[in-house]
């Protein structure tokens, strides 16, 4: 269970998260939507301990992430997989070595087991035959799929996706959204997706939450979001420049 409790964070005097409270349901996918620069990625980085809050707590299964020592934090992080916005693949390693990296770091497996696991997950994400390519030799969509494979290779309990469809064409975005849903069906992780892709949010999310002015202003199912009476949500979902959201 992931709980954010009265989380606040400012950068250069600008409050990005403002007493934010949120509880993520286990084994469900929650999509966080909100404006660009609104603090969504900052929130995600708090969850995995890459950023420390000014105040408030991030609780993972009841453990406060900010009280942990480095080694304890690394133990908790083994529960996580994260897909970064641009993949964050290691550009000096091949696709195979990128996906094998967490296995080599954390498990003492024989080489044949590593190969089996890597080929198996690359098959799941539809990247058979691309193992020996370097990240610079594959497309943006393929890079995201490699990043998904790398994040899933240790079968994590929690998956974080930082704008998984940003920069992709609509068809490739749909491919990634379908991949997230199918991987969730297979691995049953608790998923948190940061996105502005409303169509993708409806498709992948069991729940959608809107971050606005540093706070979560509404949480609901995709259907509840579609029928929301909140003018801020309506404006964001419709993509209109006219409305209560201050530009």
């Amino acid at each position: 269970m992931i709980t954010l409790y009265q989380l606040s964070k400012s950068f250069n005097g600008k409050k990005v998260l403002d007493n934010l409270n949120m509880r993520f349901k286990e084994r469900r996918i929650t999509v966080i939507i909100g404006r660009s620069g609104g603090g969504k990625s900052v929130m995600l980085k708090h969850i995995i301990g890459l950023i420390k809050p000014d105040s408030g707590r991030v609780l993972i299964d009841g453990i406060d992430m900010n009280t942990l020592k480095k080694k304890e934090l690394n133990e908790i992080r083994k529960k996580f997989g994260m897909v970064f916005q641009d993949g964050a693949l290691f550009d000096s390693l091949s696709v195979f070595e990128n996906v094998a990296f967490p296995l080599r770091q954390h498990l003492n497996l024989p080489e044949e087991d590593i190969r089996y696991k890597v080929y198996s997950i690359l098959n799941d994400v539809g990247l058979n035959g691309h193992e020996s390519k370097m990240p610079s030799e594959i497309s943006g969509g393929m890079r995201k799929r490699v990043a998904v494979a790398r994040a899933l290779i240790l079968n994590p309990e929690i998956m974080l996706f930082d704008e998984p469809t940003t920069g992709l064409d609509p068809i490739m975005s749909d491919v990634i959204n379908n991949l997230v849903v199918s991987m969730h069906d297979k691995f049953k992780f608790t998923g948190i997706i940061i996105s502005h892709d409303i169509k993708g949010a409806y498709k992948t999310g069991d729940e959608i939450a809107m971050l606005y002015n540093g706070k979560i202003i509404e949480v609901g199912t995709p259907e509840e979001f579609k029928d929301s009476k909140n003018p801020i949500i309506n404006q964001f979902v419709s993509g209109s420049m006219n409305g209560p959201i201050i530009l």
Partner: protein
Amino acid sequence: MDAILNPFESIGKFILKTINDLGSIVIYMGEALLSIPRYRINFNNLIEQMIFIGMDSFYVVGLTGFFTGMVLSLQAYYAAKVVGVTYMIGPTVTLAMTRELGPVLTALMITARCGSSMASEIGTMKVTEQIDALEVMAVDPYYYLAVPRILAAIIMLPIMAILCSLIGIIGGYVVYAYFLGLNHVTYIEKIYQYINLGDIYGGLLKSVFFGAILATISTFKGFETTGGAKGIGKFTTQAVVLSSICILLADYLFTSILF
């Protein structure tokens, strides 16, 4: 009034920033070294870095040593000829190479070649979120990226420095015996007569510290990198400049203590 105070304010800011930077580097080095007992050493990574710092730098270090030895021999000849002590050229070249020029030039060349590469490689990883990716995968980036580079530099710098000194002495010999036409036996004989192992050990000890300095500062600047491609260039330059200055400063301190 501002016109009077501004220069002092700038000096004060510079001093505070320098102290802050040096403090951060010491803390960083402590963190990197403390991470060693927490994990098992990745020998593949360490050997890869040793090859990069050592074997791959051989030509540049060797050529630097060779030409420096040649120049030293030639310059020493002009001075020694005046007072009639040309037989002292061998020991002069050897002392200069083993105590000073071998370790210092090796460190400066490896800073230019490998320090810049360390800073830019880690800096690129920082701005493309690859360092964050390591952290998220519960891999300590200091341990994974910094420790092998620092250890490899500490191991390889003395080896490269001794090679540089040896090649420099050979360069001096070539000028002495073949270009100046002096007695080559005297060159070698006088080296044995005037040089003791303490001269070589002192140079080697310096090299160990130079290795630690250049790799620590270069990787530190890599981790500090912000601001995209321009930032990578800026922090890489800072890494090379700061490493070079610290090596020269450390050289003076060690020389005044050791010899």
